[in-house]
């Protein structure tokens, strides 16, 4: 039994010795191998790896790609750190550490750039989705307004029902205008903050742009649909036309500021053609909304029997207003009567209750009037008011009567004092 155990122990010891010798020989061979490497080959290999990584840094197109390159640069550093002295000599006047540092710095700069680009790309994808949502929402709104318009034409029976339909119709138009304004704000804020060069160079971004989320198409559609909408709804209120004029003007302003950027993103290589299409659509929209608005404003003044003459833009409207008021002031200076005063009251009511309170802001937004123009008209209205009031003689009559009464009373008092008292006698 003891002999068997001794034998087994001997076998294990022999095995251990064999293993130790093998490991030692392997290590020695490896050390020898390392020592038997050609310095020239090491340097060439380092230069090749370095050049390859440098190229990879330059050509990286995604954050994950550059992260992998950074890991490889770190590996390069650990692989060649034992040859630092050799590489310093071979790379003179550059050094191994300086080269590595430069490469790492380049890689981190590329990583930051690609991270920004990736974020921009994600942001752009979100924007495209948003634009697609806007398109469908606008379609839905158009369809609601059209249905209400049709219903309004058909409804003639019940007054209550009619007024409800009209209210809903007006509400839908207001919502539609507000929605388009919000699209303008949204497009402007988001696309204006977009860094174009990074978006343009980001691979894949362009493919996303060709689909539903095309902001250029959205702008063109909004312009075209508004032109059709105006033709389909020729009897909107003046307030609504003025609001639509302001919206159109804001839209054109947005286009003037963002147009180049949007053309670069959504129509690369076809900017000129795309610009022409959008600008034609915007011009048509402007021409229609302007035409309808000035007609409606003219009609509103005529309803109050105020004849401003002909006007078809902001300048001629302003000239008509000031011309009308200058004439009225001149008339009132010469002859103020009840009729003139009534004219003033009609004008003043329209000016103060409608133009100033409901239209002014939108007329300014539409770039057809300025607040200075409004203040100037306001001053003229005030002057007209002071001159148009008919002069009253009642005060003089009352004053005369009062003087006569005072004289009579004074005379009676004098007579009473000068007459002798006979009752005492």
């Amino acid at each position, binding site marked *: 039994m003891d002999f068997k155990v001794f034998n087994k122990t001997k076998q294990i010891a022999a095995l251990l010795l064999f293993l130790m010798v093998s490991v030692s020989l392997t290590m020695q061979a490896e050390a*020898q191998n390392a020592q*038997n*490497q*050609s*310095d*020239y080959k090491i340097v060439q290999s380092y230069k090749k790896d370095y050049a390859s990584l440098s190229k990879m840094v330059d050509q990286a197109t995604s954050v994950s790609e550059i992260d992998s390159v950074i890991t490889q640069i770190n590996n390069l550093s650990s692989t060649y750190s034992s040859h630092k002295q050799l590489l310093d000599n*071979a790379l003179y006047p550059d050094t191994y550490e300086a080269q590595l540092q430069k490469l790492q710095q380049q890689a981190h700069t590329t990583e930051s750039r690609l991270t920004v680009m990736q974020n921009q790309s994600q942001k752009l994808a979100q924007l495209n989705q948003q634009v697609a949502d806007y398109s469908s929402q606008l379609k839905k709104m158009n369809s609601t307004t059209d249905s209400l318009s049709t219903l309004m034409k058909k409804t003639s029976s019940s007054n209550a029902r009619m007024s409800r339909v009209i209210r809903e119709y007006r509400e839908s138009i207001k919502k539609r205008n507000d929605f388009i304004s919000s699209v303008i704000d949204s497009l402007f804020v988001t696309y204006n903050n977009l860094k174009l060069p990074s978006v343009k160079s980001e691979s894949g971004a362009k493919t996303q742009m060709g689909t539903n989320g095309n902001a250029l198409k959205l702008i063109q559609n909004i312009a075209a649909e508004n032109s059709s909408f105006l033709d389909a709804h020729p009897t909107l209120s003046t307030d609504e036309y003025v609001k639509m004029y302001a919206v159109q003007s804001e839209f054109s302003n947005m286009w003037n500021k963002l147009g180049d950027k949007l053309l670069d993103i959504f129509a690369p290589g076809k900017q000129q053609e795309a610009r022409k299409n959008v600008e034609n659509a915007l011009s048509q929209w402007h021409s229609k909304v302007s035409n309808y608005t000035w007609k409606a404003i003219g009609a509103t003044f005529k309803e109050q029997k105020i004849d401003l003459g002909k006007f078809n833009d902001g300048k001629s409207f302003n000239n008509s207003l000031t011309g009308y008021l200058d004439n009225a002031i001149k008339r009132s200076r010469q002859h103020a009567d009840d009729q003139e005063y009534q004219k003033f009251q009609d004008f003043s009511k329209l000016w103060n209750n409608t133009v100033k309170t409901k239209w002014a802001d939108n007329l300014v937004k539409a770039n057809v009037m300025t607040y200075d123009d409004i203040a100037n008209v306001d001053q003229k209205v005030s002057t007209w008011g002071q001159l148009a009031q008919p002069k009253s003689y009642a005060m003089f009559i009352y004053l005369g009567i009062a003087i006569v009464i005072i004289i009579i009373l004074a005379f009676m008092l004098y007579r009473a004092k000068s007459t002798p008292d006979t009752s005492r006698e």
Partner: protein
Amino acid sequence: MKNNARLNLLGKIMTAAMLLFVTACSSSLVIKKVDFAQPLESVLTPNSKGIVQDARIGLKFNVMPLQYAETKDTTSVTTQDVRLIRGHAGYYFVTARGFNDVFVMEPSEGTLKLKKKIHITDQGLQNPAFNQRTPYVQLLDGSSASYNLTKDGIKGKEK
């Protein structure tokens, strides 16, 4: 007579002193302990005339004499990449694939003069490479064979 002999001796001593003075004045400046070691070998490809050039270290020469010494043939340039390294003492160690020897060349005015031809193998070097391992120049042939060289030969075998 005695005076003549004295004058003769004095003259000789003065001549010797003058010679010593002139020699002392004309001795050149010497800087010692210069390390010429080239950290990395140069691998140079001969052109059609056998000229190799390393612009980095400023060296240009014709390899045909070395090729002739190895192959006895100068009809065409058969030498491929020439491997060359300067040891710390200033001698150039030159060899190439297929050579049996390493040539230790001593630079002097416009020439490289053979200092020692170190025989390495009879089968020709397969994949030679030099490493600077001061005070030696290491010669590798592939990953298996390694020799530490001095200007006098292989370390331990110097003659």
